[in-house]
């Protein structure tokens, strides 16, 4: 017992560690679908990143002279690792993952004070750093060869890839048959003169790529549904993010369908669904009030569309999430709910005047 009067006697058995456990469980369909289509490289990513996450967290906790057990038991480093691992191109080199996880766990999380204190989503900080620093390695996705398909990566190949023997310093040296663009990437860089229908008729991507991405998106959706069902996330962020994306995509598609993807294309290729349910909903770095979450999600959705359509990067979830993380305190101050007994909600942070005599 603390000296402070402990008034709460009765409690509900929900714990942060268990919340994170369910979250891990919910990532399984997405990871399974990714592995099914893109091979063992996905699993190596996830396992290495998760292991590094826990290891780095333990290391920093030692350096900070904190006890390891309660912190590691909350599973949050594991979650960060799994999420970053699932975002990386299959079979990413160990050292790349290492760089990403150091950025995520050490810089973005522990340097800010650990779980609950980080203003930015750790996994996305790691991902964004890698994407900016090693764009070639980060945008070269393999074609969907299946889990152990004949053209896929053999365990031996994977090992050499992961330990970085066959990659140059920029991590880009990969066999041609191996590297490929994502549908978003391919469509973005299609020639201006080509209409969308002509472009897809040329089969710009290895066979089954679009279907694979769609399956993966649907698998993430299934995991997201589990999170919603277990009430581990609210519906506000995923819904408003996907709705904002859909609205903007519909608008652009209606104006010029030959140069802009359809809403379904934007939802089902790239990281839209994954980001909506697993990244944007990170409670620590997201907006807090229910209304704020709607604005936050919509902001991410809009930024994703703006960057995809007008920016240099094919996918934009990481940047959109990080940019909206910046806006969270602002959103929080302006989206307080109306407290019972008040005529209207408070807005913003007002300066308290010390000489205000009439204040009751």
């Amino acid at each position: 017992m603390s000296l402070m009067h402990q008034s709460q006697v009765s409690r509900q058995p929900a714990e942060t560690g268990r919340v994170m456990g369910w979250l891990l469980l919910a990532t399984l369909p997405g990871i399974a679908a990714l592995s099914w289509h893109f091979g063992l490289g996905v699993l190596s990513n996830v396992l290495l990143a998760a292991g590094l996450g826990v290891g780095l967290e333990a290391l920093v906790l030692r350096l900070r002279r904190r006890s390891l057990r309660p912190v590691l038991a909350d599973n949050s480093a594991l979650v960060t690792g799994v999420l970053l691992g699932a975002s990386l191109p299959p079979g990413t080199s160990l050292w790349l993952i290492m760089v990403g996880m150091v950025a995520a766990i050490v810089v973005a999380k522990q340097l800010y004070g650990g779980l609950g204190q980080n203003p930015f989503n750790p996994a996305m900080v790691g991902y964004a750093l890698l994407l900016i620093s090693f764009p070639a390695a980060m945008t070269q996705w393999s074609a969907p060869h299946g889990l152990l398909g004949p053209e896929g990566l053999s365990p031996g190949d994977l090992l050499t890839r992961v330990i970085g023997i066959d990659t140059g310093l920029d991590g880009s040296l990969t066999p041609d048959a191996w590297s490929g663009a994502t549908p978003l990437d391919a469509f973005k860089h299609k020639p201006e003169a080509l209409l969308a229908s002509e472009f897809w008729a040329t089969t710009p991507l290895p066979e089954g790529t679009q279907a694979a991405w769609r399956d993966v998106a649907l698998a993430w959706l299934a995991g997201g549904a589990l999170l919603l069902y277990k009430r581990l996330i609210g519906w506000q962020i995923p819904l408003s993010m996907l709705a904002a994306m859909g609205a903007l995509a519909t608008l652009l598609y209606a104006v010029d369908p030959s140069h802009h993807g359809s809403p379904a294309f934007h939802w089902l290729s790239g990281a839209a669904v994954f980001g909506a349910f697993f990244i944007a909903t990170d409670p620590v770095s997201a907006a807090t009030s229910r209304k704020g979450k709607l604005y936050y999600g919509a902001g991410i959705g809009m930024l994703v569309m703006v960057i995809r359509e007008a920016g240099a990067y094919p996918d934009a979830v990481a940047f959109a999430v990080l940019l909206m993380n910046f806006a969270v305190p602002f959103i929080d101050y302006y989206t307080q709910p109306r407290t019972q007994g008040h005529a209207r909600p408070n807005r913003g942070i007002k300066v308290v005047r010390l000489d205000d005599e009439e204040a009751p």
Partner: protein
Amino acid sequence: MTKAFDFPGGIHPPARKAAATRAPITPAALPRRVVLPLGQHRGQPAEPCVAVGERVATGTVVARAQGLISADVHASITGEVIAIETHPVAHPGGLEETCIVIEGNGIEDDWAWMPPLDWRTSDAATLKARLAASGVVGLGGAGFPTQVKARVRERHAIDTLIINAAECEPYISADDMTLREHAAEVLEGARLMAHLSGAGRIVIGIEDDKPEAATALNTAIAAAGAESLEITLKRFPARYPSGGEKQLIKRLLDREVPSRGLPADVGVLCHNPGTLRAALQAVRDGRPLISRIVTLTGEALARPGNVEARLGTPMGELLAAAGLDERRLARLVMGGPMMGMELARLDLPLVKSSNCLIAATLEELPPPPAEQPCIRCGACEEACPAGLLPQQLYWFAKSREHDKAELFNLFDCIECGACSFVCPSHIPLVDYYRAAKGEIRARAFEAHKAEHARHRFEFRQARLEREAAEKEARRQARAQANKRPRPAAAAPTRRQEQPVSSQASPATPDADLKSLRIAQAAAKAAVRKAEKVLARVSQAGGGQGQGNGQSDGELADLEVQLATARENLAAVEARLAAARGAAHEAPSPDTDQERSS
């Protein structure tokens, strides 16, 4: 069953009322010795009015109410006052309080009741005086003096009296059992209080987990037959904290009590069933509040149930009679597990607000797990019945950003504990809020003290000034009488010698008069403002509930402020009179006009 409205948030803690509701209410054994704390109610502690060694009968007043919000304390057994001393009481901080200790022989029980009254024929003043003399306070846990609530009509129009039978805390069943067995008395008490407060209807709010009580109430309503008062019973699904006053009013009437306001502000009075019965007994039978129904429960008890126990009985005795196994007792809680307080010892006396004692085993109410970092999951926001952002309040409280916490309506928190209950990180959120509230109050108190000192200083200055001015006026009057023909141009210059000449400009009598008149108007305005503030605070102060000691300090300070303003006015008027006297000697075109104004 009528439609109920909704309030946001709320939780469903596991119900644990069954154990104590199996058997009917039984009278507890007469204690040999009772310890009666003087502060069993909100407001100032009562003042003892008996001496050590005096013999008292059951029902004798042993301490009288002090101040605006207070209640009498009565002897709960027959015997001898053996001590008036500090004794540990049920207090979250484990503090001691002055108590009157009465020792009897455990058999003798002489009752000194007041004469019975018929509330339908007695006038309101008599009834209110009777309630005041009976020491009835809210028995739901808050302990607000009932006679003060009955007087609310003087300031607010009340249209509805609510019987708060929701009793949403797990474990507690005192109201449930009271209604099952004494529904008619509770209703009659409600009619009495409605009569006193001018309410035209009675609405009973009850959760649907108390079907027996609801049936008993329906029977009692039907038995009463046709009457002028509209009585409605509303049942709604159990959800904590629907028994919270503000939540219940929202739920039953869809009215929101304004922030820092009272139910009376929306025309409502809430009463707990036990209180209504006690009020009726006080009036009808002349029986002061000397006992109450208390739920004794928890897995460390062999025979949980509800007993009617004399106030001041040591809790340990009650629990022992209910078959307490001390080896299994891990935590003793007074009140409910959500909002109640944990007690450190068994010998504390039962008080008017003790509605439940939980003798819990370790498995039943395990100690809270270690606090983990907040991950801002938002579960607390979903649960908050007041529409607050608990996690933001937590960050502000933790980083001592008190102005931000206040801006996020910290003081609208009703401390129901729903947020702490759902927190996956086991953060005792309410404790943080209480600490923050305490710090804010302490800071405001310090500021008040400084302000108070300033006002006292100003008061003294104003008094000196008034005395000097009065002296001056007298002197001038004398001078006028003695040396009428002499020109009095020197008068204004003399005034310069006054200790504080504030706005009085000595240049010309004219300008002097003008500025004095302005000062007089300002002083009058200050007096009016001070009177208004004082009236408002003394009205509102009653119902605020929390921090009464402080609101008393505030009142004292406002009184000084008012006195200062009055002194200032008197001083200015005296000076004005003196100046007029002077001006009269040296007539100016302004003088007549001045007179008439």
